[in-house]
């Protein structure tokens, strides 16, 4: 039995998992199946309020909002998962090497990450997108780049903290290889901090993606994401508030779920130590 790679569960973790799990499931199902077509317009059913037939009502084209939320969710989840996987992976490798070995390379990487971290991620993505042009691929690419430094900083900080730990000094004395020290001796000890940052990363990715799509710079119509749905719906606030509430509250729900998860892991991790 080794130390848990995932910290002890608590109320936060459970509620967070339940909340994100539910919505993630909806998004994954949305990849393959939605109750109604998300593009089929239906003049007869414009602006229907929520009902059993249309859980979240219908929009200005008579499309089922629930189906569109499902579609938007799958886009949001897909984008943020790719972004976090890439950024976290790159963050671990870069952070581990620079943190442990230090030196000139570390100095340069640190300066860059500090500079990038000083700017809000949505702003940087905006700048990169203005060069690359908008669209789903470019959005994923620019978010991935922008998110790497925050992971680098966290992982690097942990490696710096642990590289001078007595047990790591002893591993060096034993003649354990460098790569093994990095990934077998140190890495298991930073999991709780790492999981927290992954959860926060998901949060930021979701917020950045939906924000940019809302501004019309991220994912473009006709592809639905929660962000550009909100932009469409805003004009009908007075006649169809459900059209705004459905995607909006879905984002809140998802983000809240992830922040509860991160809080739970943080507290659990502190208890483990």
């Amino acid at each position, binding site marked *: 039995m080794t130390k848990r790679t995932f910290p002890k569960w608590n109320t936060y973790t459970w509620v967070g998992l339940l909340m994100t799990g539910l919505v993630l499931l909806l998004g994954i199902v949305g990849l393959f199946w939605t109750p109604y077509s998300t593009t089929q317009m239906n003049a007869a059913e414009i602006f229907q309020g929520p009902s059993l037939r249309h859980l979240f009502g219908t929009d200005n084209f008579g499309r089922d909002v629930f189906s569109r939320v499902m579609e938007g969710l799958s886009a949001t989840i897909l984008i943020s998962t790719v972004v976090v996987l890439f950024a976290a992976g790159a963050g671990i490798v870069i952070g581990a090497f620079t943190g442990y070995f230090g030196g000139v390379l570390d100095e340069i990487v640190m300066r860059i990450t500090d500079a990038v971290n*000083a700017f*809000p991620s*949505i702003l940087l993505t*905006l700048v990169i*997108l203005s060069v690359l042009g908008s669209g789903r691929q470019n959005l994923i690419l620019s978010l991935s780049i922008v998110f790497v430094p925050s992971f680098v900083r966290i992982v690097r900080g942990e490696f710096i903290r642990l590289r001078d730990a007595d047990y790591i000094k002893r591993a060096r004395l034993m003649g354990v290889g460098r790569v093994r020290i990095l990934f077998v001796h140190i890495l298991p000890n930073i999991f709780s901090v790492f999981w927290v940052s992954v959860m926060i990363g998901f949060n930021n990715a979701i917020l950045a993606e939906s924000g940019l799509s*809302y*501004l019309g710079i991220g994912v473009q119509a006709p592809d639905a994401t929660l962000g550009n749905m909100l932009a469409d719906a805003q004009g009908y606030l007075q006649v169809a508030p459900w059209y705004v509430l459905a995607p909006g509250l879905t*984002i*809140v729900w998802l983000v809240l779920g992830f922040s509860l998860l991160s809080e739970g892991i943080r507290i659990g991790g502190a208890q483990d130590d």
Partner: protein
Amino acid sequence: MKYLGKKLFTLVMTLFLVSVIAFLSFEIIPGDVVSSILGTEATPEREAQLREELGLNDPPVVRYVNWATGVLKGDLGVSYRYSKNMNEMMPVAELVGDKLPVTLWLAAFSLIMIIAVSIPLGVMWAKSNNRFLDAALNVVTQTTMAIPSFFLGIMVTYIFGILLKWFAPGGYVSYEKDPWGFAGYLLFPALSIALPKIAMTARFLRNSMLKEMQSDYVRTAYSKGATKRKVMYGHVLRNAMIPVITFLGMIIAEIVAGSIVVEQVFGLPGVGRLLISSISTRDFPVVEILILYIAFVIIFVYFLIDILYRVVDPRISEK
């Protein structure tokens, strides 16, 4: 003083780097600027003339130097999209000039709200022994933090604009026309930016205070016979504020980002909206200046925060 000089030097260097990156990034973008300005039906002579006017024939380094010296002298270049009239191009300075105050006021309003509410709230929260209040604040702040500012903006519009009719959505009035109307309208977008940040800052301050309250020096203060009030305000608060200062720097940077989105929601003619529209219309001279401006604001805020940090924490200035 030596430290201050060093910091100022770094500040200038960073701005220089940002300006280089901002300028050169747009050099690598495919597509011809001239034909996109004049349309496809322009004569080759007209195209060549414009190219000459804009200085597009020079190598990038020369163009950067020309642009940068212009910026330093106050000449921010001309917009590719907007023109004053048929023959005169729109200077970027003019385009940005009247939008700047809107954004700055918006940011100031939000910052004041955040500081005025979150600090007393955080202190009160840390001091309270009431379990119910603690749980309630926990749920409320967690939820508030999860609301993206644009959705919050829409909800504020719905609740205060449509339901309560406290303001007219889309009915922005400029500062020159009606200062009170301007302030009254700005209150609501500022609220949309501030609310999640209030929750974040209050939580952060509370956690920081709770951590400090576990310290040995707090026990020492109690051993002198000091009341909880005296211990909190005389000892804990200042130490707990040290990390909060850095946190506030981050919050200010996020206010700048938040204002871009929220200006869009409330139809405010600020810098953020100009940035978005310039990006969509590929009006690069404007984008470059705006990036430089935002970078300057953020770097300068961090500079101030750094100095403030040294004032509050005597341990730093020693090194």
